[in-house]
């Protein structure tokens, strides 16, 4: 008797054979970049593999794949915005203070990770966390910047610290 894992893999490879070319073309049309399209098509199947969705439960594979792929495109876009914002901020620094390319690469990865764990928090909670941990401001200074009371700042940080400090992989 085949193990359940094997049958899922079989379904997935069927899905892959039937739709991967289509998905790649669909992504290429959106991104205008065939390398990125190939990468994201691959990522789409990987994310399907690691999700709990059984392949036989997918009635309309193409819209389903497109939904996953759209999410991945959005993530990629967001990552690029973040990287660009960081590089632009670096470009404003005096050259002597600039980190080495290796440090920059690690920094961009760390920023993505911070961005990921803060996703979904209310804007002020997020901002309070960044001002406290990255900019090193005191609660009073943060309260001034956000135009809220110091006790609100403490509440924001209590929430952000609980939700983020153990979710983050730095």
């Amino acid at each position: 008797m085949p193990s359940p894992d094997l049958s899922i893999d079989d379904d997935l490879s069927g899905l892959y054979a039937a739709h991967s070319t289509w998905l790649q073309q669909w992504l290429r049309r959106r991104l205008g970049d065939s390398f990125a399209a190939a990468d994201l098509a691959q990522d789409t199947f990987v994310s399907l593999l690691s999700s709990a969705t059984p392949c036989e439960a997918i009635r309309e594979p193409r819209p389903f794949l497109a939904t996953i792929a759209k999410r991945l495109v959005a993530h990629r876009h967001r990552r690029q915005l973040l990287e660009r914002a960081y590089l632009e901020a670096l470009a404003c620094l005096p050259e002597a203070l600039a980190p080495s390319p290796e440090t920059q690469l690690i920094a961009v990865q760390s920023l993505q990770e911070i961005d990921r764990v803060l996703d979904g928090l209310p804007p002020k909670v997020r901002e309070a966390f960044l001002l406290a941990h990255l900019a090193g401001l005191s609660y009073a200074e943060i309260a001034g910047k956000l135009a809220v009371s110091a006790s609100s700042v403490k509440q924001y940080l209590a929430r952000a610290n609980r939700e983020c400090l153990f979710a983050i992989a730095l």
Partner: protein
Amino acid sequence: MPASPTVTLPGGRVISRATADAAADWLTVLMSGDAGAEEQQQWTAWRQAHADHEAAWQHIEAVTGRMKALGPHPAYTALTARGTREPVSDARRRATRLLLWGGLATGAGLLASRTTAWQRQVADYRSATGEQRQLVLADGTQLLLNTGSALNLRFDATERRMVLVAGEVMVTTAHALGAPADPRPLLVETAQGSIRALGTRFTVRQQAAHTEVAVLESAVEIRCRDGAGSTRLLQAGTQTRFSHSAIDAPSAVDAQTQAWTRGQLMADAQRLDDFLAELGRYRPGVLRADPQVAGLRLSGVFPLGDTDRILSTLPSVLPVQVRTRSRYWVTVLPAEPGP
């Protein structure tokens, strides 16, 4: 979403969610600056009460230390930048709203550029930075998209409309290629107005606040978005630029603005900062000139296929050096004084 009852630390140690929360709360209290001696003693006692407590605290010290080490300014600026912090669904909603209010939004540079970034992302046809894409449409029209461009097609029974969301495009109509004419008019729309093809080959570039058009064959008709009277026929061999309400007087097509269609970048006694701004369209990242050398002028024809090579030839034609901190961050500086 209910939190899971345990937390696994990077080293593999599993602690309870309650311990993790307690450690996070201690940080919140200690950072507030109003923790007195008594609280500090309680904190020390808490850490000593259980090995898990101490492990949780060490984790917090490590994570917050690494965040601080990112350097306050660039890291904070990047993460707080509005474009990166919104969930995508909000960004989409906002972009849609801005599209509806497009005319009003153009005044606010930041909002407008964010909208463009979004429109670019979802356009029918896009070219990546540094990429040129050749396309043939169903009606036989040939398009060449220059670097970082985005275009939407709005073909229907009465017209063939293309919307240039960003960047630059060369349009060669099927008619110009000798095919029978499609009776529907062919239009390229930009933020400032539209260009109607009259059996022709032409280029259109969307700049920040105006549109540039150059006609290589036949003619086009330009129509500004506002101002009913602002139309002009532009003949082969001429180029012009227009805003949403006015069209400049045409001038002869210069080789420089058309060089890209042959995969070249051309400079004719061009300022170095202008040259780098143009070159920067073809590569990702930051490319800038030190103010001391920004005004130097250079001439030449460069192949666009390898922008790194163009940069590496600069010191042989100008008294400059190119400092590359990473592929994404290049500065052109005055040359070191010789020995």
